[in-house]
């Protein structure tokens, strides 16, 4: 947790010698708190104060980056308990667990690796794989590296085996799962040697905090916490407590992101477990089932929870061409809220029918929200039609309004006297039928 100016002042020499070019130590402290100067400008700070200031400047939840030669996943660095307080920053990594003993492993990984789904214009996929060392581990890690470039979690407790597996991943940063009080020394050595992150596990937060300190004294900084917990309620409790300790008490021993295994109580509960983990602060969520419908649902939930509440996801206002429209193709009007735009664009595109889609600047709001807020009215629509010079592109001056804002048609006729205003269906799903039957 960042220190206040007064707290920093107490750590300075308090001699007001002005060498930092500020009139007083307090003035310098205030600038430091605002991150507008560097501590090195004061030649007289003690080593002890320097250390304390450096610690307080570190993020309360450490940023952990897993890296392969293809992609990277960043977790941690979070600053709040509730998304409305600021935002949640680094989306939890979704990893699929595979067992080294599984004869179909390479095929499974290849299939999951290729998985890609589009949600409002963004492509999402899984973030990586967790390999369980219950077979010929080294051979399997090699085989997996041939079919995916994504970051890996290596699950095992045999340090020598982990060491040989990690040797196959030069230049990468993997995560080792997991060190406990009995094996942390050897696992920490392996992690340090290969610059891997290390997950640590214990059966209570007390023992976990103790363990992270011991691992740290072995020279490993990048840790991930397995909080344990037998059911949803227990995990929610621990996750909340760990996050609070890190953010509110600035308790460093638990200032790390967490890892959660969603199928720990069976695959029937996997989706629900993962959903709670995504909403409630998990850093890595490990799944056992590759089912596209579940992965898609979870990826969307993750995107929604991690969307910045201050900025609705938007598309650029403008005129969009769908299926190569010609001058006689219809002109559809909608707002620039991403979910709205893609609901409409996907339907029209899927139907194969050409259209001009005019996206107005409604400050990223849905049709009805924008209408209720006065951001999608006749004036704004007319401004868009004129501003994007739609008339120069079409031969048929006809505009299709969303059915939900049928009330706008009168006013819009006044604003755009030479255009014919028509009201389309309420829902985008019904647009293709409307375009086929009503417009032709």
């Amino acid at each position, binding site marked *: 947790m960042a220190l206040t100016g007064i707290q920093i002042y107490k750590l300075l020499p308090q001699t007001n010698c002005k060498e930092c070019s500020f009139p007083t130590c307090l003035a310098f402290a205030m600038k430091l708190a605002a991150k507008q100067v560097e501590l090195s400008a004061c030649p007289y700070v003690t080593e002890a104060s320097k250390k304390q200031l450096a610690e307080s400047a570190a993020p309360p939840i450490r940023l952990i980056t897993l890296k392969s030669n293809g992609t990277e996943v960043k977790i941690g660095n979070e600053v709040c308990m509730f998304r409305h307080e600021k935002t949640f920053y680094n989306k939890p990594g979704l990893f699929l667990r595979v067992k080294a003993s599984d004869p179909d492993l390479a095929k499974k990984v290849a299939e999951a690796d290729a998985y890609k789904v*589009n949600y409002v214009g963004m492509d999402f996929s899984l973030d990586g794989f967790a390999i369980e060392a219950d077979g010929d581990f080294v051979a399997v890690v090699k085989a997996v590296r041939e079919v995916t470039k994504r970051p890996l979690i290596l699950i095992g407790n045999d340090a020598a085996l982990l060491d040989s597996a990690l040797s196959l991943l030069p230049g990468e940063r993997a995560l080792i799962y997991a060190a406990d009080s009995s094996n942390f020394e050897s696992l920490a050595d392996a992690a340090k040697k290969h610059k891997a992150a290390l997950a640590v596990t214990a059966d209570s*937060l007390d023992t976990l905090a103790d363990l992270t300190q011991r691992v740290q004294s072995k020279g490993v900084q990048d840790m991930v916490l397995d909080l344990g917990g037998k059911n949803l309620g227990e995990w929610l409790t621990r996750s909340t407590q760990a996050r609070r*300790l890190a953010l509110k*008490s600035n308790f460093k021993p638990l200032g790390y992101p967490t890892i959660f295994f969603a199928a720990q109580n069976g695959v029937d509960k996997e*989706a629900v477990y993962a959903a*709670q983990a995504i*909403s409630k602060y998990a850093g890595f969520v490990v799944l056992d089932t590759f089912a596209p419908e579940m992965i898609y649902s979870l990826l969307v*939930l993750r995107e929604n929870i991690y969307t910045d509440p201050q900025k609705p996801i938007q598309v650029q206002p403008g005129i969009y061409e769908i299926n190569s429209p010609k001058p006689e193709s219809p002109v559809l009007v909608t707002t620039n809220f991403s*979910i709205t735009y893609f609901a409409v664009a996907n339907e029209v595109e899927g139907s194969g029918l050409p259209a001009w889609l005019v996206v107005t600047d409604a400050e990223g709001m849905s049709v009805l929200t924008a209408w209720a807020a006065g951001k999608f009215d006749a004036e704004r629509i007319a401004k868009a039609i004129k501003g994007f010079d739609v008339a120069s592109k079409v031969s048929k001056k006809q505009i299709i309004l969303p059915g939900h804002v049928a009330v706008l048609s009168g006013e819009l006729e006044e604003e755009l006297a030479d255009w014919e205003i028509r009201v389309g269906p309420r829902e985008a799903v019904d647009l293709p039928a409307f375009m086929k039957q009503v417009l032709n």
Partner: protein
Amino acid sequence: MPIEIPKDKWPGSIKAITIGATPAEGGTRATTITVGGQTTLPYLQFEAPTPHKPVIAIEIRSRNPDDWSPLLVEAWGDGMADPAQWAKKAEEAGADLIVLALTLEDSPEDAVKAVKSVLDATGLPLVVWGPGQAEKDNDLLVAVSEATKGERLLLGICEDKNYRTIVATAMANGHLVQARTPMDVNLSKQLNILISDMGMPKDRIIMDPTTGALGYGIEYGYSVMERLRLAALQGDAMTQFPMLVTPGFEAWKTKEAKVGDGVPEAWGDWKNRSIHWETLTTIALVEAGADIVVLRHPESVKRVRDAIEELMVPA
């Protein structure tokens, strides 16, 4: 050394509110349900026990809906043609209470008949919704309210434009009201104030902050619920009501749940996807503080119930 866990102690709490009345209490219900009563954030039982678990309502209709997903039709079968049958099936599927939604085609007599038949068919507490058109809502709900005096039904949906008549009839006949506002903390507060100012007792208001489905604005509803709950615990009396949300309605409106053909292959199996859509929407809202969740598919009911049981295990 044991860590000192930071604990919140709040000045405010949520009202415990009971829906339904037994014969001894002036109604006919075999069971009643009580929700609310929390003194801290959802399921943080290391701070305070969760006095009442969130409950699951199943939504049924007075007339067979012609626009519901075939997956829902498959789940409820013939039951959908008759509200009494449907209510019985909903009870078997594990509902804690029933939501009966009336339709525009219902006359006040039809509405009363449908409500009575559901009350006869099941002993569960009942929520009754008008069709969602102010004038029609008033017509139907007043008739229903008078014909069921003393049942402690939850009547909805009260919005800023039509709350007066519904609140008045609920007050006169011993029912509760569902106060809905479009995802805004201040609007929720305002409507609760307006309803209270009419003299409605505070133990007869349930607030409905509105939600969006997974992928369709759930994050707005989620954060508004978290903020409402925080405001209530901080002591704002006009937000200290239990929350009802309608993830079933929202989820089954989405293309993901509604459409099986012609969708991207990456969306996977239709039926499982629909259930995930409804279940995950619900779980997120339960985490954000929902006290009553209104669902549509029996399989989602089962999964949500399992999750609630786990959240209720004392710390």
